[in-house]
């Protein structure tokens, strides 16, 4: 039982870590703000949630009211991250868009903020 | 213990008498007669209180009244002894005369802010008596500073540019020396001895090095710069911008004499005559004083402004007194103390006269006074008597004290001091007598005055007449003041 549980825990957390790795490399490698946001938005949310789920599972080692409640709380945090993280991503994205940060395009390299403004229809 | 014939608190009351009058004077500002009544009442009360103690003191007693312990071992204490009494008597009696004179002077010239003037006059008198009756150095210092500050509005009474610069000089000198020299000297004395009470044996016991003593001596002598010892004298001529009654009282009596009195007190009460003599401190004092005497007399010769000439004369005469006390012999000290009174009556006469001339003619310069004696005979006669007293010629009181100091010099085996006295007396004569001569004995053409010039108002010529008379009286009855001085030196 414990071995399986541990395996689940390790699996969840390790996959989480892997996605986090992707996120990290992504925000370092991707060429512009917008693409980095992709890495940050998706990777951060899932990796955090997975690791949290892993710890919630770990609580089931000694099942009792107390540990179950702790697991519940960890799940609660995961839910929170699920709501909050994309929202934060959106907020940051919107701020960058509003600030007219230059975008990268495969054809032209960096597109200046003027073009962003044009796209915004201003 | 004999019962004292006056109230325990009489010294305090005497000090306070004029202070109490201040609010009364201030409140009756718009009724000049009432205001002056208060001044006279306070003056009378003050003089009465001082006199009430005179016989007791003359009998060889001293009276101590401790008011308030202010620091550990130091109280606000009043001690009435011969020296203090002598000074108090001079100050309080001359106040009344000056008040009469002030009324004449101020009203004749329609001066502004008369109420303020009389208020601060009264405060100054309190401070002066406070100094006279101080039982210790701290009390003395307190009243000394009070006097400096309360005379400032008097000195700068005119409130013009000249008054401002004169007043500035006045306070700068007085405050800087008292804070910068006298105060630390006092503190060091206190640190060494643990007391500041005056004691005829001195407070320094054995074992205080001569270097410290000399340093303290110099700090004290220059610290109380009201005495005008050179090089801290130049405030005095500058302060002559004051109205004449102020110059008269304050610069013939109150302020400068307070300086001299303080130094005298310190020499006799803090150092002690014996210590002075044994440590040769007296020589130092004598050298400083002699220098001042001679130099100031020479400067006086060159002054054309009458009040300035009087001022430099005062500087010299003050040093006479210091010189006398500095001799540290019985006769020298007695003479010095007595000279406070003698010079006071003589010099105040001269100032009164200068003021009277100003009131009557508006003239301030000696060169403009040729022939004035014919127009203002009483005034100029009083002037003549006053100058006799200051020079030290009979029949005026100044001679008596000067003679005593001369004898003191001999007693102290300091013959060179004799020469100083003689030379300076000669110089005195040289700067006073020509004024008198030109006032009376010029030819008709030389006289600068027209016939319509008359004597100043009664209030202006009467006081000099009285003080001149007293100067003469003092020649015949010097013991009025000499007695107090002798009381101080009983047993020597």
């Amino acid at each position: 039982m414990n071995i399986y549980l541990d395996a689940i825990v390790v699996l969840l957390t390790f996959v989480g870590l892997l996605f986090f790795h992707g996120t990290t490399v992504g925000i370092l490698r991707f060429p512009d703000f917008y693409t980095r946001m992709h890495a940050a938005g998706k990777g951060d949310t899932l990796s955090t949630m997975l690791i949290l789920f892993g710890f919630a599972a770990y609580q089931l080692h000694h099942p009792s009211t107390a540990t179950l409640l702790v697991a519940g709380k960890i799940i609660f945090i995961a839910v929170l991250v699920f709501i909050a993280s994309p929202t934060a991503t959106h907020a940051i994205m919107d701020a960058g868009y509003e600030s007219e940060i230059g975008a990268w395009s495969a054809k032209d390299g960096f597109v200046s903020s003027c073009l962003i403004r044009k796209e915004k229809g201003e | 213990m004999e019962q004292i014939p006056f109230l325990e608190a009489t010294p305090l009351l005497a000090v306070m008498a004029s202070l109490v009058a201040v609010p009364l004077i201030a409140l009756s500002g718009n009724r000049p007669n009432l205001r002056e009544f208060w001044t006279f009442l306070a003056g009378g009360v003050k003089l009465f209180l001082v006199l009430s103690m005179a016989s007791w003191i003359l009998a060889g007693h001293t009276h101590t009244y401790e008011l308030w312990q202010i620091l550990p071992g130091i109280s606000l204490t009043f001690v009435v002894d011969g020296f203090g009494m002598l000074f108090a008597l001079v100050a309080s009696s001359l106040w009344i005369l000056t008040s009469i004179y002030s009324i004449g002077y101020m009203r004749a010239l329609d001066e502004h802010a008369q109420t303020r003037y009389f208020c601060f006059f009264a405060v100054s008198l309190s401070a002066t008596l406070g100094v006279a009756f101080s039982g210790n150095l701290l009390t003395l210092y307190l009243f000394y500073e009070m006097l400096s500050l309360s005379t400032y509005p008097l000195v700068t009474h005119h409130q013009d540019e000249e008054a401002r610069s004169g007043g500035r000089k006045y306070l700068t000198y007085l405050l800087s020396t008292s804070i910068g020299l006298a105060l630390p000297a006092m503190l060091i004395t206190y640190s060494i001895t643990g007391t500041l009470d005056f004691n005829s044996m001195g407070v320094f016991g054995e074992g205080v090095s001569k270097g410290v003593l000399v340093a303290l001596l110099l700090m004290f002598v220059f610290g109380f710069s009201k005495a005008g010892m050179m090089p801290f004298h130049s405030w005095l001529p500058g302060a002559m911008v004051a109205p004449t009654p102020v110059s008269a009282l304050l610069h013939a009596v109150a302020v400068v004499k307070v300086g001299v009195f303080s130094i005298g007190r310190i020499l006799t009460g803090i150092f002690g005559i014996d210590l002075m003599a044994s440590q040769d401190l007296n020589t130092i004092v004598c050298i400083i004083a002699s220098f001042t005497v001679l130099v100031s007399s020479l400067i006086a010769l060159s002054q054309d402004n009458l009040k300035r000439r009087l001022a430099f004369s005062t500087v010299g005469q003050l040093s006479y007194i210091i010189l006398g006390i500095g001799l540290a012999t019985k006769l020298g000290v007695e003479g010095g103390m007595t000279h406070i009174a003698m010079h006071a009556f003589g010099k105040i006469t001269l100032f009164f006269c200068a003021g009277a001339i100003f009131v009557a003619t508006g003239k301030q310069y000696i060169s403009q006074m040729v022939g004035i004696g014919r127009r203002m005979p009483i005034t100029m006669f009083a002037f003549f008597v006053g100058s006799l007293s200051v020079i030290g010629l009979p029949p005026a009181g100044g001679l008596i004290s000067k003679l005593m100091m001369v004898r003191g010099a001999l007693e102290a085996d300091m013959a060179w001091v004799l020469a100083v006295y003689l030379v300076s007396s000669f110089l005195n004569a040289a700067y006073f007598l020509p004024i008198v001569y030109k006032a009376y004995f010029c030819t008709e053409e030389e006289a600068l005055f027209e016939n319509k010039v008359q004597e100043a108002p009664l209030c202006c010529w009467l006081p000099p007449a009285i003080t001149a008379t007293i100067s003469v009286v003092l020649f015949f009855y010097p013991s009025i003041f000499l007695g107090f001085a002798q009381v101080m030196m009983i047993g020597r």
Partner: protein
Amino acid sequence: MDTYFILLGTALILHMFLTLIRVIKGPTVIDRLIGVNIIGTKSTLLIIIIGTALHRVDMFIDIALTYALLNFIVSLAAARFFQRKRTAGLVMEKEVKS
């Protein structure tokens, strides 16, 4: 298992340091904000890992939750602030091009 968690924590910290490079490099303020936000989220995890390692996770869970909430609010506030300012991107653009 404790060892694994410590290794996990170390790996997380390592990645957080990598993310820090983005925070330092920028080039725009908002780029930095991405990194900060991620580091904040991962700190929540780190708190839980520490709690687990100390066997007091019941105590650390509240701290983690608080941290997650505050991190969200801080990111949001920063984003809102720069959105309002509108200049955050422009200032840095020259650097980007050069």
